[in-house]
């Protein structure tokens, strides 16, 4: 490790927040699977590294019926994969977690870290978007809750201020019959970033919710597209229409190392069709 930084691991949220307030240029360490690379490559030079894994709130994962699921900032991706309750209630979240990087990375990487890193292709962002997740943020000035759809501000940028910590993410409870899928396309099956990641959710009232990652500067919730298909039955014709329509919302980089923009446009359409088919099959069972 080349960057020079002071390391601090507080045992309470208050200690963490006051350390953050006193020390500008502090970076937060949870799983470390992103920040360690930046420090190693000297892309990021931080003076203080604040390990939040000792904070009790961050280590909490709790589900309250009729309210929802709270995932603390230190909860790892593999903890999501292993949770049967999540797999039952929020299948697309488990699906995205299963596909994130490799087993070792999932043992360290956290759900909250994945969204705070704000990569346009963050796998867990799309399912959190279709479930209208709420980001719980704390600072010495108090707490605030930000809708996940308003959390991302650009490539690797969020609305977080320097003195703030995300303590966790809250996902509202779903009703019986709610279903969702996550589909992704990457160069290889296994440890690779996605070219397109797509989450589709169908509520018991037949409302279709859609979010897509890796096709713009931030993961996108397709609210407008959702409105225009509201009340319509999902048919092959409608799927074809969405496939064309979704291109209007995409803005993929033309020179990505992983794929061309044309490929992403194409594959988004393929995933939409596959996803809708899967949702309908699941519903039929």
């Amino acid at each position: 490790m080349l960057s020079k930084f002071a390391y601090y691991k507080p045992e309470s949220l208050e200690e963490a927040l006051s350390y953050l307030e006193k020390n500008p240029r502090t970076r937060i360490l949870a799983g470390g699977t992103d920040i360690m690379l930046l420090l190693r490559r000297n892309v990021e030079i931080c003076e203080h590294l604040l390990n939040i894994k000792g904070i009790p709130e961050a280590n909490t994962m709790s589900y309250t019926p009729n309210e929802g699921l709270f995932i603390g900032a230190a909860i790892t991706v593999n903890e999501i994969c292993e949770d049967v309750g999540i797999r039952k209630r929020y299948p697309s979240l488990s699906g995205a977690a299963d596909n994130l990087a490799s087993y070792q990375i999932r043992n360290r990487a956290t759900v909250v870290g994945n969204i705070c890193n704000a990569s346009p292709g963050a796998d867990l962002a799309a399912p959190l978007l279709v479930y209208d997740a709420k980001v719980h943020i704390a600072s010495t000035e108090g707490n605030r809750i930000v809708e996940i759809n308003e959390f991302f501000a650009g490539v690797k940028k969020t609305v977080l201020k320097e003195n703030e910590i995300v303590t966790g993410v809250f996902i509202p409870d779903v009703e019986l019959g709610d279903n969702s899928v996550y589909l992704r396309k990457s160069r290889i099956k296994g440890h690779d970033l996605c070219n397109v990641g797509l989450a589709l959710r169908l509520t018991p009232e037949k409302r279709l919710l859609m979010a897509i990652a890796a096709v713009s500067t931030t993961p996108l919730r397709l609210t407008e597209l959702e409105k225009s298909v509201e009340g319509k039955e999902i048919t092959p014709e409608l799927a074809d229409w969405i496939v064309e329509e979704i291109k209007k919302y995409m803005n993929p980089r033309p020179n990505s190392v992983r794929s061309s923009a044309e490929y992403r446009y194409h594959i988004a359409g393929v995933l939409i069709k596959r996803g809708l088919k899967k949702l309908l099959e699941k519903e039929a069972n």
Partner: protein
Amino acid sequence: MCNHNRKKDCFEYVDSQLPRVPLELVVNGEKVYELIDPTMTLLDFLRNNLKLFGTKEGCGEGECGACTVIMNNKTVNSCLVLAVEAQEADILTIEGLSKGGELSILQQEFIKHDALQCGFCTPGMLMSARALLDRNPDPTVEKIKEGISGNFCRCTGYQSVIDAVLSAAKREREELR
């Protein structure tokens, strides 16, 4: 200061000259106490300080899995873990697999199935396989693939590794019951 400092791919450990911090942990069943540089990775600590050279550095970026060790019963890429994060942790490295000079069943099966050629990925591959068999004594081929998904091997093509793990699982179930 090392003049590699700004080079992107410098693999050399550079002392940050920051004040040392105490680190206490268990490595392969033995208590270790040292004062260390807070910016040191667990991988550098194992190799440079403890001279446990079995754990390899491949990419240094969590892609290849050559540096995999078991930390508190979970596999981690030790290049992405700070040594200070392993405070009070229980670490198992490749050096801790054999007992009393005898190779473990898993290691024996890797040799029997020619599950290695150059051997650079093998320590990491063995640690991933060990952790997998600890949580699932009877894994399917799919589960084995998932378990070693973070370990790249550029020689064998994985099939012999999968065979070795299957065979080791069977032997462990029969012999260690």
